[in-house]
């Protein structure tokens, strides 16, 4: 237990950031490549996906950011008993500053009052850190880099919504989420992945929605009703014909992931976290073994 307290993982966190910023996860790449095969040959949609794939390849080869907007770094940390979250927070903040110096991240943290950019991606609640203790004996860290353009088209609905004919049930959820996809058009750098949360208060709902983005594209929701809804919104969202970058085409969404929270009887929120094609996420597991510290990235 004391070993957790003396461990310095700063360099490992820098590597985690580097991977997230420069290597697009394999499931995203596969999904984009498959989507490209479905678009009309020679269409603008096909060309856009082709360019995206080439760009992803170049970024990985040169270890440069996939997109110049390296977004908000969001860390989700699951830790075993004995870990100091204060020490980890300090190491992560240090790692983010180092990663900025090494140009894996663009300086993105702006003081909302003075307008000053801190220059190193640290600031008030920046990067975002969420800690949760768990029963396992290793440390697990997920990182998402959430772009600004797509965050600007993320949105929240309060049900019932008369204009969309959305009541407080899953059919209502379907209606507002499809509206969110329509409102976003290509502006969130489509094709996107939707993280959706039902319930909670406004704040918890947005956090839950973003956490859905950690799920692999090909997983199945354990709740059969939500699994069916995910599938339906994915298909119907693509029927809107918005297409990559809003050029028109078959690929508007690459995935829909929905989570639910308990809510007050008085409220029914639906939050939609829109993630662009540059859905950058990476994870890291740290295990203590006898004399060794084992670190695995994924």
């Amino acid at each position, binding site marked *: 237990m004391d070993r957790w307290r003396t461990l310095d993982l700063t360099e490992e966190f820098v590597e985690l950031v580097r991977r997230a910023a420069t290597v697009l996860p394999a499931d995203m790449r596969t999904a984009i490549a498959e989507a490209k095969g479905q678009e009309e040959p*020679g*269409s*603008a949609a096909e*060309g*856009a996906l082709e*360019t*995206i794939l*080439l*760009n992803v390849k*170049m*970024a990985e080869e*040169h270890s*440069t*950011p*996939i*997109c*110049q*907007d390296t977004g908000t770094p969001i860390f989700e940390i699951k830790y075993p008993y004995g870990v100091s979250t204060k020490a980890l927070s300090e190491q992560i903040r240090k790692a983010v500053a180092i990663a900025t110096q090494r*140009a894996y991240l*663009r300086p993105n943290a702006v003081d909302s009052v003075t307008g000053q950019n801190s220059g190193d991606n640290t600031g008030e609640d920046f990067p975002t850190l969420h800690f949760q203790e768990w029963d396992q004996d290793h440390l697990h860290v997920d990182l998402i880099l959430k*772009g600004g*353009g797509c965050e600007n088209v993320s949105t929240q609905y309060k049900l019932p919504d008369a204009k*969309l*004919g959305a009541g407080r049930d899953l*059919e209502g959820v*379907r*209606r507002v989420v*499809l*509206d969110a996809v*329509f409102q976003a*058009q*290509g*502006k969130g*750098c489509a094709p996107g992945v939707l993280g959706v949360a039902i319930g909670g208060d406004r704040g918890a709902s947005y956090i839950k929605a973003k956490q859905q983005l950690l799920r692999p594209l090909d997983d199945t929701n354990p709740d059969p009703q939500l699994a069916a809804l995910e599938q339906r919104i994915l298909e*119907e969202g693509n*029927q*809107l*014909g*918005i*297409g990559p*970058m*809003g*050029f*028109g085409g078959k690929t508007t969404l690459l995935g829909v992931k929905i989570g639910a929270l308990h809510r007050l009887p008085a409220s029914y929120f639906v939050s939609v976290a829109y993630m*662009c*094609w*540059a859905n950058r996420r990476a994870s890291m597991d740290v295990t203590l073994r006898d004399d060794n510290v084992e670190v695995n990235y994924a």
Partner: protein
Amino acid sequence: MHRLTTPISDEEIRGLRVGDTVYLNGLIMTGRDAAHKFMIEHFIKGTPSEEELPLYNELKKLLDGGVIYHCGPVVKKHEDGTWSFVAAGPTTSIREEVYQADVIRHFNLKGVIGKGGMGPRTLQACREQPAVYFHAIGGAASLIAQAVKEVVTVYKMEFGVPEAMWVIRVEDFPVVVTMDSHGNSIHQQVEEASRARLEALLEAD
């Protein structure tokens, strides 16, 4: 697929339709909010002062048949004083809507590159001039930076690196025509078609 080199002719522009993929070559210039505001105030609404005259003449030459790119690049300065582009994705174009039509007309611009599309005033100027709006791929920063083969010069460095006017030579810069010189806008078409689809989907249940 079209391959065009600046300066671009009116015939070439009239031959482009929304949805066409184009590979751009030759000299183009970056410009965003500060650059557009400057050109309007000092050259289009105002008259260039004596010391601004050389720049004005340079721009007139460069932009006649030329292209402006809405981009705030990340650049690297080398030890020998030359520059290169590290990341050069497009920025949101709609902020230039108030200026763009006048800049297109005054300089005989043939194209504007950006993302997200522009509004009716720019579409009208595209039809008259003629000119087109080229959409670059949002987020494709590495790839576009690779297409920038040379940084020829930079004007108005006092605006800061992202806002300065960078004259660059590009090779096969991939873009898509989303507003053409015949009055068509993909942005308008896609929004209308998707609205109709949405209404049908919401009707269904």
